[in-house]
């Protein structure tokens, strides 16, 4: 079954607005939560990541919020730009399953309208 649940499946935001993508997980062994960004015609690339010992991590316009008790985390894109239009995947990782340790959400297709 899907180890990481992601919503929404698609999102349309006006330029300058805030984009919010949500993810939830059940496995408490997960200890690393990366977000990958995929532009059309390209492979996914690591965007930003967080460990569960902090509740928030910010890099430029991108912020991860993490709620350990609720087992939820989200990506916020402030001042969204048309260049942010891409598919975003949340993921969760644990060393307990060896090299096969990265579990992806189903993806959110973000469109930022000029």
């Amino acid at each position, binding site marked *: 079954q899907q180890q990481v649940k*992601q919503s929404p499946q698609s999102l349309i935001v006006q330029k300058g607005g805030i984009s919010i993508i949500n993810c939830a997980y059940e496995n408490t062994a997960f200890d690393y939560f990366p977000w990958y960004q995929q532009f059309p015609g390209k*492979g996914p*690339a*690591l965007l930003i990541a967080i460990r569960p010992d902090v509740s928030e991590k910010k890099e430029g316009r991108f912020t991860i919020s993490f709620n350990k008790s609720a087992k939820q985390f989200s990506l916020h894109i402030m001042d969204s730009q048309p260049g942010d239009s891409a598919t975003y995947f949340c993921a969760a990782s644990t*060393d307990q399953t*060896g*090299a096969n340790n990265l579990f992806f959400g189903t993806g959110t297709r973000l469109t930022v309208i000029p």
Partner: protein
Amino acid sequence: DVKVTQSSRYLVKRTGEKVFLECVQDMDHENMFWYRQDPGLGLRLIYFSYDVKMKEKGDIPEGYSVSREKKERFSLILESASTNQTSMYLCASRYQQAPYSNQPQHFGDGTRLSIL
């Protein structure tokens, strides 16, 4: 910069054919992965390899096999292609160093495979 190169961007094959997808990485990474990406289903792991000659099944290995004879190259094989294997295939590699969960996976740009 890490470079993961997939041999074909687009491939069209016929049902029943044996299909080879090739992936090469230039960073001496130990771990390599094959995923398929389908709309609404995200990335699903087909097979992965810890190191040369080693392979492990992922979540959806049925109908696929892999080969890793050299560290830099990981091949995905569709033994007898079927229409339900039409998909985008993504290869990734990763440096194996503890804590493993911290190491990012580096992806190629994908092969869009159509089985007619």
